[in-house]
């Protein structure tokens, strides 16, 4: 358990980072001649103004919860899996195979959807095992191999969509539409929000439970904090690191499955919206804690939905301004954390 003072410092840095990032963007907008306070008002209203907006924000948050958890779980144990992008693409590929090729005739959703989810998790985990083994046996840094595998996954997806997954009777590069049984049921009547969000929250709860309430979770934490201590205490460090990569990859794989079954129009296209790298930002903003990740993902979802409304408002800013806020928040958190760490060292030495 972290000392209360540290938790408080974390929360303070996070809050300050969000405020400073918003202030910086507002300053930029003023300099560019926009009425920044009105833009921010519009942004807020666009994010929180209606049930529809909130539902879309939750929909946006859904894949980010998965990729954020995938990154957080790995980073917390000192494993630098930045391959959530590739692992979620593998999950999407698995879902397309299950739904349109292997088990298209399954009629019941309660069989079809879990089958796809399990398969996606397995594909994601397998894609994450490769870098783990390369690290263990060949000394290839996981950071490097996961980046490379992200791009290999993207090309693999494109290759499969022109081969075994190609839709029949069309020249468009995409998979066949998913059978109805694979469509995630809707959750509310507006905003395309489906039960994917419940699955995401369920996975977050599960991760929290494992981390906070099991000795396995404790071992993972110690492995991350100090591998030497972990090894000397008799923990199987190498095996734990492989396990972490598999869990992380499986969670990322679920992001791909949920995307295909619920958000991306019920088929697999050549460019799945990339949530892998954003997941790293979500994990950091959420302080690598499952609850934090969920909150951070919702915050990013709100930012995106608000920015989409700013784009169609009379201010006409592109919705990518949301990415400026996201990037700034992460950078400021990094600076703030480093600064506080330095303060603590100074105080300890004094």
């Amino acid at each position, binding site marked *: 358990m972290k000392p209360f003072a540290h938790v408080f410092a974390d929360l303070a840095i996070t809050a300050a980072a969000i405020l400073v990032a918003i202030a910086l963007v507002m300053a930029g907008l003023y300099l560019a001649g926009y009425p920044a306070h009105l833009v921010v008002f519009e942004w807020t209203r666009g994010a929180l103004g209606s049930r529809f907006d909130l539902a879309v924000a939750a929909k946006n948050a859904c894949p980010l919860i998965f990729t954020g958890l995938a990154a957080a779980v790995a980073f917390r144990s000192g494993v630098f899996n930045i391959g959530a992008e590739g692992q979620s693409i593998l999950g999407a590929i698995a879902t397309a195979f299950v739904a349109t090729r292997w088990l298209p005739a399954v009629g019941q959703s309660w069989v079809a959807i879990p089958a796809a989810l399990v398969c996606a998790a397995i594909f994601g985990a397998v894609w994450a095992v490769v870098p783990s083994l390369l690290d263990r046996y060949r000394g290839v840094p996981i950071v490097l191999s996961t980046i490379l595998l992200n791009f290999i996954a993207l*090309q693999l997806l*494109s290759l499969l969509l022109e081969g075994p997954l190609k839709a029949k009777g069309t020249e468009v590069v995409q998979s066949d539409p998913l059978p109805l049984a694979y469509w995630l049921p809707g959750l509310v009547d507006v905003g395309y929000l489906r039960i994917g969000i419940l699955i995401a929250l369920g996975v977050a709860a599960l991760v929290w439970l494992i981390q906070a309430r099991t000795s396995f979770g404790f071992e993972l934490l110690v492995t991350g904090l100090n591998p030497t201590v972990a090894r000397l205490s008799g923990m199987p460090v190498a095996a734990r690191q492989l396990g972490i990569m598999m869990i992380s990859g499986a969670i990322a794989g679920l992001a791909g499955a949920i995307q295909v079954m619920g958000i991306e129009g019920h088929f697999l296209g050549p460019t799945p919206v990339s949530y892998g790298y954003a997941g790293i930002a979500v994990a*950091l903003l959420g302080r690598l804690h499952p609850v934090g990740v969920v909150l951070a993902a919702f915050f990013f979802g709100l930012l995106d939905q608000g920015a989409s409304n700013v784009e169609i408002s009379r201010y006409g800013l*592109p919705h990518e301004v949301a*990415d*400026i806020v996201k*990037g700034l928040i992460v950078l400021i958190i990094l600076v703030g954390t480093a600064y506080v760490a330095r303060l603590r060292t100074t105080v300890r030495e004094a």
Partner: protein
Amino acid sequence: MSAFAAPTFIMKQAVTSATPLLLAGFGELLAQRAGVIDIGIEGLMLMGAIAAYGAAVVTGSAYAAIPAAILAGVLFVAVFALITVWFRADQIVTGTALNILAFGVSTTLWHALQNYMTGPTPHDPPQLFDAISIPILRDIPFAGPVFFQQYGLFYFVVILGIALFMVLKQTRYGLIVQSLGDAPDACDAAGISVRLWRSGLVLFAGACAGLAGAYLSTMRGHSFQVNMTAGQGFLVLALVIFGRWTLSGLIAGTLLFGALDGLQTYLAAIPGATTRVPHQLFDMLPYAATLIALGVLTRSRAGPAYLAAPWPADR
């Protein structure tokens, strides 16, 4: 003529597409040798691309593009250097955040630039750079079109490459760069400021990546497009590693994959060619080959010993 046509076409393509990758690669290579990995090259190239095109439009002169791109790259990477070298934050996370930021900033600036160009007083895009043919040399069979009918930046990259080669091999600076990544504590003990040196090399990497971005938007391409780097920054990262952190390896790898890419373009253009290899395999190749090279050929360890490790290590 015809006997040379296919290889000439392929290699000319290879050199044209290799130019920005080599330039950004030189900078990244030096930074990584010194122990700093910047996975934000993608974002730096985007910033260079938008700054170059924006400066050209606003000033009406293509030549403004060059300093603007360098400045954009340096300013952006300065944030990275500050956070990673001086605050010792994680390099991978910082690079990722800067990529996200650069995507947002470049897209927003592009939006503003389009408004500016079509605004009350319309601004036409200026005449941008054409390829520079070097007299006499351009007429040499094969080598002429391949090496002497390129954009101006290519000639600069050649000169820079030779200069770097000599500095790294012949001077003590080469040794310092290497030691910064392999034995930073030894450097410190020898009175070499690890932080200043690393910052300088990272800033150089930013300038290179920014300039590479300018190549995309004002030379090879003639406008900015949202996310126009399309993964080239990450390709640079792969190529530096594939070349095992050596200049010659980087150059060989970049030209090799460029040539394969050119070959694929060439084959795709032949009407009626039946046995066609899917282009995805070609696109996948640099990454897959790098992964295999790392996994199969690694003898002892991969890369500089202190790559991505914050310095000083003690807390």
